[in-house]
């Protein structure tokens, strides 16, 4: 892993929200790197802070603490024009395809918006870039360029969103549940398109989703979050075969496979995640973990490497039991 160049370095990222006088710790100290050209999948259940993490990286949500270094530049201390400029290297695609596009603007203007903001291309050059981008994502610009965004269906809107996000030639793309609102057949089209564009444009991806199968399909490495903390991070194939964190194991066994012969694990995780207003002491998963001991309540497990490139935050990682 050391020979790869780190594109995004996240250290001690924290995001706190104030809610009715109380502090909700949505993201509680995340450390991870994303290497150039890879796809890191980020999974977890709702409320685990995965979307907030993505938004904090883009600084649409202000991080309470921590540093974000993108391509050698520290983002958290930036302000104003510098931040706006630097942030174009990283783009984000949102979950709701319809709401991502201004219903009152024309498709070609939406895709050209980043170019217009920066005046980076004008006239014929601008039109050519927009034409190419729309063509590339499968929306015929000659026919549909002048249409309003509100006339398109979810899958098409997501294609247009992708085209827009590529206009400034970003290095990195953050995909926040970008296919979860789409039908299976459309979802597959978008996932394949994303894989192709990643190659063509040399993109690095952070792919945030709750669907484990979708995440595995696109990711080189996967990180699992629970209640604002990272449980486990490692190569996706390895981690799906031999999860080290009990939570990852339960998540995987709860995932439904479209195969009547798939092993239906009866070990379903009981209970629900506790409130982030009042997280449990020590390991945040301990209240639902069948293996929890007193140590788990008193001491917070730190993310430690079990095998090269595979780290887990658990006092009793499962791989050691297996070995």
């Amino acid at each position, binding site marked *: 892993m050391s020979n790869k160049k780190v594109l995004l370095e996240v250290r001690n990222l924290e995001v706190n929200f104030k809610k009715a006088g109380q502090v909700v710790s949505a993201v509680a100290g995340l450390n991870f790197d994303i290497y150039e050209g890879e796809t890191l999948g980020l999974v977890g259940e709702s409320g685990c802070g995965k979307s907030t993490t993505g938004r904090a990286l883009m600084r649409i949500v202000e991080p309470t603490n921590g540093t974000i270094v993108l391509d050698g530049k520290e983002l958290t201390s930036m302000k104003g024009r510098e931040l706006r400029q630097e942030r174009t290297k990283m783009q984000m695609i949102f979950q709701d395809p319809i709401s991502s596009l201004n219903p009152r603007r024309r498709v070609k203007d939406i895709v050209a918006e980043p170019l217009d903001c920066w005046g980076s291309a004008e006239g014929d050059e601008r039109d050519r870039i927009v034409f190419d981008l729309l063509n590339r994502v499968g929306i015929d610009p000659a026919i549909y360029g002048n249409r309003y965004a509100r006339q398109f269906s979810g899958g098409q809107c997501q294609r247009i969103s992708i085209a827009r996000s590529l206009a400034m030639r970003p290095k990195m793309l953050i995909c926040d549940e970008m296919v979860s609102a789409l*039908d*299976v057949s459309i979802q*597959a089209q978008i996932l*394949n398109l994303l894989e192709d564009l990643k190659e063509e444009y040399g993109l690095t991806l952070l792919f945030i989703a709750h669907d484990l199968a979708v995440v595995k*399909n696109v990711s080189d490495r996967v990180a699992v979050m629970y209640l604002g903390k990272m449980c486990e991070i490692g190569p996706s194939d390895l981690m799906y075969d031999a999860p080290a964190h009990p939570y990852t194991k339960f998540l*995987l066994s709860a995932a439904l*496979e*479209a195969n*009547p012969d798939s092993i239906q694990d009866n070990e379903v*995780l009981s209970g629900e995640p506790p409130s982030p207003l009042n997280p449990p002491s020590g390991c945040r998963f301990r209240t639902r973990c069948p293996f929890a001991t007193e140590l788990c309540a008193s001491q917070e497990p730190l993310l430690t490497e079990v095998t090269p490139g595979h780290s887990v935050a658990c006092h009793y990682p499962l791989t050691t039991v297996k070995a």
Partner: protein
Amino acid sequence: MSSSPILVVKNLTTTFITGRGRLPAVGGVSFELNADETLGIVGESGSGKTVLSRTIMGLQPRSNVELGGSVQLLGHEIVHASEDELRTIWGTEVSMVFQDPMTSLNPVMTIGKQISESLRVRLGMSKADAKVRAIDLLKLVGIPSAEERYDAYPTQLSGGMRQRVVIAIALSCSPQLLLADEPTTGLDVTIQAQILNLIEELKSKEKMAVILVTHDLGVVATRTDRIIVMYAGRIVEMGRTRDVFFNHRMPYTRALLESTPKVSNPSHTRLITIPGRPPDLYNLDGGCAFAPRCAYATDQCRQEAPSLQEANSDGHLFACWNPLPVGTSPLNQQNSNEPNGASNEQ
């Protein structure tokens, strides 16, 4: 399987009359459901699965809808039944669980009251009896400290707990058929597994039939006896769950299966996609609705809609002019050989 069917749907059509014209949301659907069965109805958005389940419940609005065919539920005809007739069936013979538990619960009424109210109205229970039974129901659906939660408002519960309450209300009058329309779609995976297990458990405990409507093949794969696959308002394939997964004949069923990412496949497995998108129901021509997206389509497919034909004597039906050969399901290849999908680059 020997028991007589409790639900018989015959040539059911639901057509909405809208500003744009006639929208045939359900176009001639026939099937039967036995008393102890779990039936999965699978389809993408616009396939008519939700409209079908609402029509079976008799929940379609009276205006701007044309209904045709028949739905016989335990001897009652649902199509064109009056609201009063339906009210005697709802709850006691058929109940429904909707996708969004927040909108199916009344936010300003405690959950206990919502359950006991339906018990008192439907079954004429006394206030005290209804409360006891309501708490029993809350326990039955696995709500911890049910006595305290009895006085909770829906907003005080998590999504999973709310869905449990909705199920408790649905079960309150011991229906013989439970219709669950995307019951786990908004929920997290671990909660989804809990709810699906709960429905399965309650089904055998309460001896009812279940119809599970979903877009997710994973939800129906291991929990149903039979599956209906819908496309553009019609049944395109129907049969025992194993037949549909392993011996499907309709290319759409195959395509749906192939485009679903699987946890068991290695990462970066190329997904085989269906080009295009579901048809515009306003502009259906005479042919097979899937033909424009189908790799096997011929002129016949484009001109003439195929009707359901038998694949085997076990009730496996499909609607296709050029059916796939038996036993070529991607699942078969996966189980026998090395994973084959990895190199399926187009």
